[in-house]
């Protein structure tokens, strides 16, 4: 509900929501032209954590770029691994065994829940509530332990290989995942919904704040929970199925209001859907090898390749151009938050500073993914 107010455009001052600011969760600078506490013009300035991923892709071989993918969006690193593995497997024509595909889906969905938990914690930290962070981290640590057993690292996973996965999952991982899901399902209604979602202060804080229309999403290219919060039923796992997602039945939560509350509810329901996918994947887990045969040095055929993967923040695209030798000729990473943030300037006009920060929190930004 942007307060309808006549903004005096002459007496404004420029406030730097500077590179170092508790609410930007990283180094995003937003140049705000303010009139009192109302924002007249907001212009994000990027590039404070630009780490040359695309230049490194061109100078390293295909396999050497896998660790880089995890350092772009470290909250959903496995989806980035998955996107990179997918585009290279398409280009080089490598087969992935059935079991490896299932393990990929299980670990990616677990990582998605961990990413949504951390978004939920950071979003409520922006709104002033400090305690939910600790409870969300409590659950997230359980997922990190599970994934650490299998992948070896806590945050920046480098678990996928072209043609399969690094190592197999054992029964203890499966048992651990099952009772994690039971535990989170038990806590979700009581702790996450009753204590926080139905809290009147939170509802007042994010309801009717930051309206994003479907047309705006289309013109700015916003995808993921931001688009699904504005009524666009677009989830790459359903619209452009890849890996073994067609074998699971899960539905895509879509809300039509388009305000921060809608985006909040989309992500909360997505956690539930991810748990459904994991359970079905664990039930139908086939046997067999986890690593297909892939040539040591990959020389994919020259041409233009594109793969899109659904990360927690939206559609991650890899535009790969190969010219036949062992390292990629050109790799463009279409990062979802880059487009989601581009509509911040238009939506945040006329909002209060506190509401604009609540809106930015609901966009779920990871800055190194924007700056690449």
């Amino acid at each position, binding site marked *: 509900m942007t307060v309808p107010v006549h903004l005096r455009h002459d007496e404004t001052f420029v406030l730097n929501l500077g590179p170092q600011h508790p609410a930007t969760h990283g180094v995003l600078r937003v140049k705000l032209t303010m009139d009192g506490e109302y924002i007249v013009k907001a212009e994000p300035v990027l*590039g404070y954590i*630009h780490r040359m991923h695309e230049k490194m892709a061109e100078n390293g071989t295909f396999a050497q770029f896998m660790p880089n993918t995890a350092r772009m969006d470290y909250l959903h690193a496995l989806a980035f691994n998955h996107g990179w593995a997918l585009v290279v497997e398409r280009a080089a024509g490598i087969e992935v065994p059935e079991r490896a595909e299932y393990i990929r889906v299980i670990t990616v969905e677990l990582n998605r829940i961990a990413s949504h938990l951390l978004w939920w914690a950071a979003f409520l930290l922006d709104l002033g509530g400090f305690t939910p962070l600790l409870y969300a981290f409590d659950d997230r640590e359980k997922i990190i332990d599970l994934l650490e057993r299998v992948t070896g690292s806590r945050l920046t996973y480098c678990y996928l290989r072209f043609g399969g996965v690094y190592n197999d999952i054992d029964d203890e991982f499966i048992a651990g995942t099952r009772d994690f899901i039971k535990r989170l399902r038990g806590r979700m209604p009581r702790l996450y919904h009753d204590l926080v979602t139905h809290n009147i202060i939170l509802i007042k804080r994010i309801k009717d704040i930051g309206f994003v229309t479907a047309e705006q999403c289309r*013109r700015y290219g916003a995808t993921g929970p931001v688009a699904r919060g504005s009524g666009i039923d677009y989830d790459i796992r359903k619209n452009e199925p890849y890996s073994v997602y067609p074998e699971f039945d899960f539905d895509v939560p879509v809300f039509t209001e388009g305000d921060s509350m809608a985006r909040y509810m989309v992500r909360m329901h997505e956690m539930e859907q991810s748990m459904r996918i994991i359970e079905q994947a664990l039930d139908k887990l086939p046997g067999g090898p986890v690593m297909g045969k892939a040539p040591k040095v990959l020389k994919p055929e020259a041409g233009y390749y*594109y793969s899109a993967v659904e990360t927690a923040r939206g559609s991650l695209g890899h535009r790969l*151009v190969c010219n036949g030798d062992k390292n990629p000729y050109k790799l463009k990473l279409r990062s979802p938050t880059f487009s989601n943030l581009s509509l911040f300037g238009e939506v945040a006009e006329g909002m209060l500073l506190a509401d604009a920060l609540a809106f930015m929190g609901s966009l779920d930004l990871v800055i190194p993914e924007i700056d690449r």
Partner: protein
Amino acid sequence: MGLVEQTQAALAELFPEPALPAAPAGEGDQEAPPRQAGVVVTDAARHGSHLDVLCRPDQVVAVARVLDQDGYFLEAISGVDWLDKGQFEVIYDYNRLGGEHCRVTVRALVDRNEPAVPTISGVFPAADWHERETFDFYGIRFQDHPNLIRILLPEDADFHPLRKDYMP
């Protein structure tokens, strides 16, 4: 697939002369005779995109407007530096937001010495930042772009990092 044919038809009238039936798409452009501007259906399972449109730089805005009417959204703009051919290439990726899936890749080749491509940020505001980034990395000037300055590199940087001949 109704949508792919329908989009192909929509784009076809932009290119009066029939597109050269190139050999199965995807293999290197160098061997095949340089393709005429036109629309070619590509195998989506392997290349990810259904339609591959090669067009001259000045047709880029017209293609964008056609796709905008059909309800596509701009997914990404990437630049490619073909050093040996002395050309830059700008790749526009369009995709459907919801509903039936169809991805269109529009490619435009530009001379390397004075690269200039008309901007499509009028049609798709998403292109604003993507074009600034392509300018930042390759130095491709996008004509009458509202605010063509660097986006990721420090403002006073004087080099274009992703050019093949650049080494710090």
